[in-house]
């Protein structure tokens, strides 16, 4: 049992740090970032001939940048505008040289631009554009009657709608908030006339939309670059050179939009899309085989997360429960703390770990263990507090006290309740462990995060269904474990009406 636990722990923790010579490639969790990172990974594997540790879909800028700073990854695709505004917090640094100078003290550097810019843009339906003669954003000023629907980010950011409206003096009155994925349907269906888009969005390669030119240059330019650790660039100059050769200046806006469309709309995987860019072909069969292997790895990771988290929660929770059952004051305080932990949404708890433990498997395990504590502590307390009073009096009279009483009398009698709590905790944890992927903790959630980012239901289900199956299997396993851990005499009692 212990050896299994250890094996799980090793499997779960192993990817936490990649071996020397292996390059950690990361990405944020949206299609373009996945595709660019996968291109980098394939360049490293096939041209530079190095090992690659893929850590794709880590999350937003904050988490991905932190992973880079912590050395969990060596390189990921980023945008100049994000580097100046979000990372360096100096919007005035715009040129590549200025950004490199700013990043130097942080131990980071960037490649030259890859060739395309991804900025906010406004798009209108093509028939509306033709009818009203719309080509530039300034043309909108004469048509306040047009109906607009913008994503919430665009509506709030100063470099989004509020600034744009001032800059161009736009008078649109009918402005609503909409989810990005739904905006295209809304405009295609004629429900709205103007939406905000990213300039390299794959859907812009399809007919039906016209992107308005930013004729008074309001939107900041977000040129795509590779953001990397300097120690990686200096220690593996060949690898870095291969990346620059293959990618710098090689991807223009149209090419990027085409790649995004391939991954988003044509049902090609990120890996297939990246291979196509590099002039290679990954067949569907190869892709399926890889998916199955990946599912195997993710299954081990997920099991590892659940096993280690629940085991830690048992090791901590049962003694806490025993302690709480002994003293009312301590018990109340303890249950309150554990209860409050439970009210924190699991995703938030995972994020709280980041400042202390960074990202990856360890913080995910800590958060999952904390989350699994409540049912275990509570069931232990309940089990011990509801022991038959007459039996306890008899234990007194027979001279059972302290550790011996706990081991011989109290814990066996409470075992049904304690195990029920452990079972609940384990099955919950299978579910909450899917969130670990949001902070780079691995497991089935990796597929869910990827599926969400790529708007790909199949990939989401490829993560969600195995997780559900695992919960069912675990349930069955615990039924078997009950037979092993609950004394036979107690099973007889619970199995029969009195």
């Amino acid at each position, binding site marked *: 049992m212990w050896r299994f636990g250890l094996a799980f722990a090793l499997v779960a923790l192993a990817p936490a740090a990649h071996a020397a010579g292996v390059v950690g490639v990361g990405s944020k969790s949206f299609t373009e970032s996945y595709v660019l990172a996968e291109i980098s990974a394939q360049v490293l594997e096939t041209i530079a001939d190095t090992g690659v540790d893929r850590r794709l879909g880590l999350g937003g800028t904050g988490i991905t940048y932190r992973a880079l700073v912590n050395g969990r990854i060596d390189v990921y695709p980023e945008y100049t505008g994000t580097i100046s505004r979000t990372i360096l917090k100096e919007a005035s640094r715009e040129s590549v040289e200025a950004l490199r100078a700013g990043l130097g003290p942080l131990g980071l550097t960037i490649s030259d631009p890859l060739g395309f810019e991804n900025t906010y843009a406004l798009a209108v339906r093509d028939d509306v554009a033709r009818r009203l003669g719309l080509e530039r954003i300034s043309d909108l000023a004469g048509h306040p009657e047009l109906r607009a629907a913008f994503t919430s980010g665009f509506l709030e950011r100063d470099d989004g709608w509020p600034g744009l409206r001032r800059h161009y003096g736009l008078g649109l009155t009918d402005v609503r908030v909409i989810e990005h994925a739904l905006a295209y349907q809304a405009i295609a269906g004629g429900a709205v006339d103007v939406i905000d888009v990213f300039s390299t969005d794959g859907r812009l390669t399809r007919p039906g939309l016209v992107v308005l030119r930013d004729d008074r240059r309001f939107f900041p330019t977000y040129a795509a670059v590779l953001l990397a650790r300097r120690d990686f660039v200096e220690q593996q100059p060949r690898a870095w050179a291969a990346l620059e050769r293959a990618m710098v200046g090689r991807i223009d806006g149209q090419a990027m939009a085409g790649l995004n469309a391939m991954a988003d709309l044509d049902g090609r995987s990120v890996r297939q899309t990246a291979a196509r860019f590099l002039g290679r072909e990954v067949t569907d069969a190869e892709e399926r085989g890889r998916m199955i292997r990946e599912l195997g790895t993710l299954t081990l990771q997920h099991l590892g997360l659940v096993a280690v988290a629940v085991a830690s929660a048992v090791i901590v929770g049962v003694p806490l429960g025993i302690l709480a059952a002994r003293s009312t004051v301590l018990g109340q305080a303890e249950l309150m703390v554990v209860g409050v932990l439970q009210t924190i949404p699991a995703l938030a708890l995972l994020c709280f770990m980041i400042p202390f433990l960074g990202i990856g498997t360890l913080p995910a395990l800590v958060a999952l263990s904390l989350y699994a504590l409540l049912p275990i502590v509570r069931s232990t307390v309940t089990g011990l507090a509801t022991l038959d009073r*007459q*039996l306890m*009096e*008899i234990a*007194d*009279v*027979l*001279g*059972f006290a302290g550790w*011996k009483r706990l081991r*011989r*009398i109290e814990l*066996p*009698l409470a*075992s049904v309740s304690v195990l029920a709590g452990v079972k609940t905790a384990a099955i919950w944890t299978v579910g909450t462990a899917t969130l670990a992927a949001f902070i780079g903790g691995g497991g089935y959630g990796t597929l869910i995060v990827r599926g969400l980012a790529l708007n790909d239901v199949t990939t989401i289900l490829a993560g969600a269904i195995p997780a559900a199956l695992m919960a069912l299997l675990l349930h069955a396993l615990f039924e078997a474990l009950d037979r092993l851990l609950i*004394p*036979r*005499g*107690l099973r*007889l*009692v619970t199995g*029969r009406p009195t």
Partner: protein
Amino acid sequence: MITVRRVSKRYGGVVALDDVSLDVAHGTTHVLLGPSGSGKSTLLRIVLGVVVADTGEASIDDVPITPATRRRLVGRVGYVVQEGGLFPHLSVQDNIGLPAETAGWSEPRTSTRVRELAGLVGFDDALLRRYPAELSGGQRQRVGLARALVLDPPVLLLDEPLGALDPIVRADLQSELRRIFSTLGKTVVLVTHDVREAAVLGSTITLLRAGRIVQQGSLDDLARRPAEPFVTEFLGAQAPPPHLKAYF
């Protein structure tokens, strides 16, 4: 020799025992008789040491019963409760052997003793391996009795030991208890509300009501020289109706 001197006990505003004294001579069986709430169980548990009296004192063989001396009394007092008070997670032989565990006996010694007592209460080996849930009410009661006897304590305290049994098993076990008490020569205090049980088992009876002693003596004393009308009333309530006397 069990002595209880002027013991009182309250639970909140409720008087459980009010100035009660008791002497149980060595080798005799003393029955605490009374209706529910009369304080008979509380009195037994004060002797057992699991309830501490507000005032007054109790002792066994001149050792005062206090929380400090409880440990010393563990091997000297056997305790039997209704339904046996068995631990459901332990087999019959483990249940019987429990007192030997705290006394630090060796396996073989415990096992020999358990077998000896199984013989006394009429159990075979197959029954020893069963669990409490697999026993009848009467069998559980016998296990409880055997457990109380493991360390061969001079004192036995029984709290409604036969209360949950059906009448025939109950009558059987009453005779068996009587045999065992007299064979082993124990000093016994037994709590019951059953007059027949008191008559079969007890040499002396203390009749309690609402925490006070109503009368102490033999059944004959209580029947012929009742201290209050309540004595006659209590005994009469459990006697067969006069016109059915012929059937008993």
